[in-house]
């Protein structure tokens, strides 16, 4: 019985991890895309993107998920559950990440940008060679925060039929009536996934760390 419960929960944990990684990746791509477009685009592109970010940050994730999953089929777009998660949770987290990146870009020393400009680098080269490498390093705490948020919002996936860990737990509780043990167990599994993500980020952070970089 115990092994059976554990296997069911671990299967759900696989979906949870998959949702977190796919939505987290979407968020990174969207966040980076918005940050880069704001840097390179003109004033009106920046205004449009700022408005988009403003709206996305204000919309509840579940509402956007329902709009995508239950609303879009009404106008002829059938969206698979995982893609619906990416287009809702991924997009909202991307909007938050774009703000993290905006703050990190603002922390870059303008003199470095001026120096690169004075050497003949173009705006695109400055972004690629100077700004983005520094921005990513400044953004690590914010990225970890956002990934954690994505993990914690992943249970909403059960509303569109993805059998992630909370969904599995609910089904198990319904049949076994052992809510305390099962929900406590998934709490621990969420924590383990969180530690796993944190460890992965720390490895990447260590690989690219520079002594005294953020302390100047």
């Amino acid at each position: 019985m115990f092994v059976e419960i554990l296997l069911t929960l671990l299967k759900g944990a696989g979906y949870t991890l998959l949702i977190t990684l796919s939505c987290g990746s979407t968020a990174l791509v969207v966040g980076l895309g918005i940050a880069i477009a704001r840097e390179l685009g003109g004033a009106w592109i920046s205004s449009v993107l700022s408005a988009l970010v403003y709206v996305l940050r204000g919309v509840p994730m579940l509402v956007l998920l329902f709009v995508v999953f239950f609303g879009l089929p009404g106008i002829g777009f059938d969206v698979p559950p995982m893609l619906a998660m990416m287009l809702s949770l991924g997009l909202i987290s991307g909007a938050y990440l774009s703000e993290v990146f905006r703050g990190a870009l603002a922390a870059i020393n303008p003199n470095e940008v001026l120096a690169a400009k004075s050497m003949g680098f173009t705006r695109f080269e400055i972004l690629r060679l100077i700004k983005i490498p520094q921005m990513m390093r400044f953004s690590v705490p914010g990225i970890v925060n956002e990934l954690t948020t994505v993990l914690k919002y992943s249970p909403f996936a059960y509303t569109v039929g993805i059998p992630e860990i909370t969904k599995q737990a609910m089904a198990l509780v319904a049949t076994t009536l052992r809510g305390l043990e099962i929900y406590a167990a998934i709490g621990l599994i969420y924590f383990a996934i969180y530690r796993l993500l944190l460890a992965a980020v720390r490895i990447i952070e260590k690989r690219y760390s520079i002594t005294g970089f953020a302390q100047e």
Partner: protein
Amino acid sequence: MALLEVNNLVKSYGDRTVLDGISFALEEGEAKVIMGPSGCGKSTLLRCLNLLIEPTSGAILFDGEDVTRPGVDVRALRSRIGFVFQNFALYRHLSVLENVTLALRRLKKIPKREAEERALHELDRMEMADKRDAYPAALSGGQSQRAAIARALAMDPKVLFFDEPTSALDPIMVREVVTLINRLYLDNVTILCVTHDLCLARYISDRVVFLDHGRIYAEDLIENLLDRDADPVIDEFFGGEG
């Protein structure tokens, strides 16, 4: 023909004229210092010359080419002018060696090994070769400025611009940087330097262009300027030194 010739350069922001009819020339191998009270337009002038700031009117001839005409290759112009800033402006995420090789590899498309050899030569000239793998955060102000000078020199520029290169340094570091810039001066590197530092001006320049309220107030040898005791503008700036 002068390497750099500036004719009637004007820079205005709305009603405010920052540079008002600046004309001077810089010969190849010459070292000239631009001095003047704070806010007189020194840094703006330097930045206009490599088009970091767009001049309102006037002409800038660099190596015989009018760089203020439309369609000029700004990138090519800037790669021929080495620019050293007051606050060093080293790229924090790159080591000293990478700071020096970045433009060589990405702009001049020089292969890595060759770029590193060239960078090490310039770092050695600035007595910074032993710090090649250090990151900017680990350098003192003087070391940072020397690395920044090596970065500018590695591009083999026709002229070196310095914008207050010693004003962010303490007196000991000033001495080490002045000594090295003086060595460049003695090597006949063409230099245009904005500074408040009389000691630096004495060590590295042939002539001084003295700006006041956006205009050239005087252009002379520094000794001659220091002798102008009766001139209130110059006397106030130098504060009785000399």
